[in-house]
């Protein structure tokens, strides 16, 4: 591969990540509006972000909704994954289609659906409504993650446990789950992030009291009112950097340690 190809790829990658980092100097800026380069630096917007209930409320809501979504999507999606991988049943193709559909239907269409549907159920502007909607969107994410792990699972391990007298649930607890634990962990994490990042449905149905962080960010962009948005953006960027850094560090440590020690 020629050197110039590599250079092009590296330049594109830098252009890809570079622009995002402009939110960091903005968050320390003293300018009340979008002005770059900043006229001066301070920590005021971080103070505002952590003390203003218009920001702390949505952060808390987003965490609660994300956790609720994660639990619900795992409880429904994990059994569905086992059914899809391990059983051939009537209507299986239809079931698979229904499980995958939330990935296909554009969010704005569902936002309209939930807006009217939850309106008649009295669930609009409630946290429960957002959790129920997000759970539907996260189920396919959980199923995709778990089915790809399950397909490669060696069922002889379960047969061995059964041969040794373990009942199905015991086998699951002592054999299946521990082996698949990383996949379960990743599936749950994806479900959480899918909800935490979801903006469109949350914008239309979460209302003021259960506003999520993306909804609050969207609203402050539209009003151009609250510069604390830059602090929120920087913190989200920092969270992604920290998570990727931790993953990278873990891989380095694993590489250096000899196997099975």
């Amino acid at each position, binding site marked *: 591969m020629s050197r110039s*190809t*590599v250079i*092009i*790829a*590296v330049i*594109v*990658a830098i*252009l*890809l*990540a570079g622009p*995002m980092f*402009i*939110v960091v100097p903005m968050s320390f800026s003293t300018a009340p509006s*979008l*002005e*770059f380069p900043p006229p001066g630096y301070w920590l005021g917007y971080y103070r505002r972000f952590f003390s203003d209930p218009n920001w702390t409320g949505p952060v808390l809501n987003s965490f609660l909704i994300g956790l609720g979504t994660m639990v*619900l999507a795992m409880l*429904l*999606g994990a*059994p*569905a994954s*086992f*059914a899809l991988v*391990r*059983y051939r*049943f009537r209507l299986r193709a239809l079931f698979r289609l*229904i*499980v995958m*559909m939330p990935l*296909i*239907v*554009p*969010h*704005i*269409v*569902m*936002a*309209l*659906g*939930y*807006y*009217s*549907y939850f309106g008649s159920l009295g669930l609009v502007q409630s946290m429960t409504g957002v959790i129920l*909607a997000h759970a*539907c969107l996260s*189920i396919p994410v959980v199923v*995709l993650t778990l089915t*790809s792990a399950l397909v490669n699972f060696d069922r002889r391990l379960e047969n061995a446990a059964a041969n040794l007298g373990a009942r199905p649930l015991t086998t699951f607890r002592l054999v299946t789950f521990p082996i698949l634990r990383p996949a379960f962990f990743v599936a749950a994490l994806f479900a959480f992030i899918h909800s935490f*990042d979801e*903006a469109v449905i949350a914008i239309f149905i979460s209302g003021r009291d259960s506003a999520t962080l*993306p909804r609050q*960010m*969207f609203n402050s*962009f539209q009003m151009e009112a609250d510069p604390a*948005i830059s602090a929120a*953006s920087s913190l*989200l960027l920092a969270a992604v*950097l920290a*998570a*990727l850094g931790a993953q990278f560090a873990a891989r380095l440590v694993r590489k250096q340690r000899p196997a099975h020690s």
Partner: protein
Amino acid sequence: MALDLTLSRSAQGRAWSAAGWASALIRPPFLLYAPASLFLAVFFLAPLGLVIWMSVSEPTVGFDNYAEFFASKYDLNVLARTFQTALIVTITSLVFAYPVAYVAARKGGAVGSFLLGIVALSFWTSFLVRTYAWMVILGARGPVVGLLVALGVNPPPRLLFTTFAATFAMAHMLVPFMVLALYAVMKRIDEVYMRAAASLGARPLKAFLTVYLPQSLPGVLNGATLVFITCLGFYVTPTLIGSPQDKMIAGRIGQQIEQLLEFGAASATSMVLLAAAVALFVIYDRLFGIEKMWR
């Protein structure tokens, strides 16, 4: 009767009876898929069905909303603009994503990890954060306008709140999706083919065009379909930094819901968007199988 047969077989030869039914229902597959089916029926299919129903019943029963959509020059323009934007975004992101995925897949090592790390960083960072970054960069008091003024462009062009800004930002945001789709296919292409081409005397460019590129096409189609469909339904970025006059279809639906309170019209527009997305998925599914898209 065929139905009877299958039911009694699933109850392991037991007679067609209430007991047989019950034992079929508490068996593993049903117990495993029933909760998710029920949940999705009540909280996903029902609201989606409501949109379909509203499109033919609000405010009066009939296909008036669709007739109005297809008779409205404004709405047809929105539809055409949406497809055009999605096409430009798909091609642009493909052009930028291809070299990154190519080098990451073939080179590996520190360069490969660096490239994949950057792609992951951008992939996992919220659309809102990245949209905000573009608001600052393209803003009236941002660095680009500042640079243009310093270069003597006066008055500087308006960049923010234009179709250009939205298109550019969406392409930038969807490059990581495209890279991951390309990379998934490219890393399975065996190096042996390229070495064989070289040893048979093909120059690097010729080897790439005749050997590598055709093998990477499934990834290109994967990524293009995924990006195109995502772009068709994009709401946040065009609404925040796109032109308020030149809406895309998702923004139009949002406007019909929030400002105009025309739920019937919003539902009909939604069905047009949904039909476009589903049609693309069906074509894709026929050709490749739908699960491959997210792997």
